[in-house]
């Protein structure tokens, strides 16, 4: 047997599990009202990967708000920020909560933050919304909406830091022809639990680049759902996550193509290291009968750096029309490749440096797509720090 044969085998050793969902994703229940949902037990399709005990009661109504998340804002001069009450008519436009925690958050928040990019305006600087968790031992619920009015353009960074238990809905409402780049960074302290449903609503001919970066926290579950309000919408969903020992990171994506001539492109990459590190990636794409000329592709790659870490990856593609431009998905989980390590070491690079090169290379593809320099630099530094942590 040659060494090359082994490499190929190792790379596909953990090919992803592909399951056919019990019911079409179109059937999934959604409601703004928490009481309309049954309390999940953990066996439901939607919850089967989530360690329910670590949700601290967010899912069963036993976690009333005991604190508040604090916002820190750095806005572009053209961008408007408002704090609004529950009755504001604009809230909820981007989508309806599709799981009980999301509905709990929707039923529980007291004030929402609305960030608006005015019509036909290009923001001259990036806008930062930094959210500090309620603090260790405390629970809070939140709601943020980013609105890009017709032909508005902006880049917004949503930065989640600090401690505590936090559930929220984040809405992205794009008017016709709007162009928005958003980065949601989950860089929580070790104790934090964060469950977030993110609703992406794209107007006619609008473009949204939605980037999710999950680094910290005990349990982070982010569920982005993209829908199209008119034809010509284009959503790019990128994700980068790095799970350490004991961390649970779950990303559940749903792209609902119900309108013709729209595009979606999903690329998520995760690295895992340490005992009990667990990442879950679900990629549901539904192309409904009306969504002719849809173009969609989704890709998930995971790199398992050490023993004891586990990555689950489940792509689901449902197609109800043959009149599409293209649809595909791919998913793979590989172990750290000994052959790559040997090759680089055989060229004189010490083991640590060789490992770093390989991991940097793994994330390179996605980092190059993040055009916000401060975010990219922070990610590069975070990846280095993660590598430092296991002494490579």
């Amino acid at each position, binding site marked *: 047997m040659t060494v090359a044969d082994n490499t190929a085998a190792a790379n596909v050793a953990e090919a992803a599990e592909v399951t056919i969902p019990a019911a079409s994703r179109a059937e999934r229940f959604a409601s703004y009202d928490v009481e309309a949902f049954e309390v999940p037990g953990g066996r439901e399709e939607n919850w089967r990967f989530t360690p329910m005990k670590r949700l601290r009661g967010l899912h069963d109504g036993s976690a009333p708000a005991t604190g508040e998340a604090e916002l820190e804002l750095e806005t572009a001069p053209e961008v408007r920020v408002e704090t609004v009450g529950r009755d504001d008519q604009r809230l909820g436009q981007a989508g309806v909560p599709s799981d009980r925690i999301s509905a709990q958050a929707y039923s529980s928040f007291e004030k929402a933050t609305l960030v608006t990019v005015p019509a036909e305006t290009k923001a001259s600087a990036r806008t930062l919304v930094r959210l500090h968790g309620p603090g260790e031992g405390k629970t809070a619920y939140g709601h943020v909406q980013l609105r890009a009015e017709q032909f508005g353009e902006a880049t917004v960074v949503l930065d989640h830091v600090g401690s505590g238990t936090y559930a929220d809905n984040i809405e992205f409402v794009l008017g016709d022809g709007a162009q928005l780049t958003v980065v949601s960074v989950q860089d929580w302290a070790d104790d934090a639990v964060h469950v977030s449903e993110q609703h992406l609503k794209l107007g006619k001919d609008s473009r949204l680049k939605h980037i999710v970066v999950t680094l910290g926290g005990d349990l982070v579950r982010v569920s982005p759902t993209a829908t199209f309000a008119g034809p010509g919408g284009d959503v790019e969903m990128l994700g980068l996550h790095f799970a350490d020992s004991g961390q649970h990171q779950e990303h559940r994506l749903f792209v609902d193509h119900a309108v013709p001539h729209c595009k979606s492109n999903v690329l998520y990459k995760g690295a895992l290291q340490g005992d009990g590190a667990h990442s879950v990636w679900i990629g549901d794409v539904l192309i409904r009968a009306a969504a002719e000329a849809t173009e969609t592709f989704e890709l998930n790659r995971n790199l398992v750096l050490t023993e004891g870490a586990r990555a689950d990856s489940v792509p689901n593609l449902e197609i109800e029309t043959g009149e599409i431009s293209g649809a595909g998905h791919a998913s793979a989980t590989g172990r750290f490749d000994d052959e790559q390590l*040997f*090759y680089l070491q*055989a*060229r004189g*690079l010490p*083991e640590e440096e060789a490992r770093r090169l390989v991991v*940097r*290379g*793994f994330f*390179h593809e996605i980092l190059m797509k993040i055009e916000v320099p401060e975010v990219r630099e922070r990610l590069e530094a975070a990846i280095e720090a993660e590598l430092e942590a296991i002494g490579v």
Partner: protein
Amino acid sequence: MATLEIKDLHADVVTDEGNKPILNGVNLTIRSGETHAIMGPNGSGKSTLSYAIAGHPKYEVTSGEVLLDGENVLEMSVDERARAGLFLAMQYPVEVPGVSMSNFLRSAATAVRGEAPKLRHWVKEVKDEMGQLEISPEFAERSVNEGFSGGEKKRHEILQMALLKPKFAILDETDSGLDVDALRTVSSAVNEYKSNNEVGVMLITHYSRLLKHIEPDFVHVFAGGKVVQSGGKELADELEADGYVKFTTEAAV
């Protein structure tokens, strides 16, 4: 003048089903300036010899010695061996996605030379070597070996050799996957390196065609995990005429 001595080397391949002995007492000494061809049938253990010397984790040396100027190579890590002056041009170079060739070459040169090469000189050095090997400049920005053809991979192995300037280079079936023109280009780059550097070369090959381009001083027939006959380059002609049958049957006995 440097010397690489392989003394009674025994090595196993490590598999899930347990260890399997491959090398059964290899003896070979190579001095700088010499070129030794190791020829043998498939499965004779030629590649195992190269991996065992380089320190591949799938091969375990069970007894014997490899000495580089008297230093015990087997006690060194893979990267220490490379920095000590050993180079293995691999039969199956590995792809490293997302790492550009230029970044890789510079990192490797920095590690082997002990300091980062001066940028201006480095750029010219790389450009000259790539030109010699007829490698298009665009390859510098491509990921290491990713999507390269067999021939392109082999050219890049020799490029690495030329830039890392080893004392001993082991070329493991560098000729396989090369067409006639590519073989000529790669061979002349090896010859150029040999004539400008005090290097000992171990050419591992199945076919004698490589030896028409890179002239060996010694030819060793490898069978059953060891050297079964040594001679001058006329031995290669004999092998070409008669094949390996004589040696494989002897080794089996």
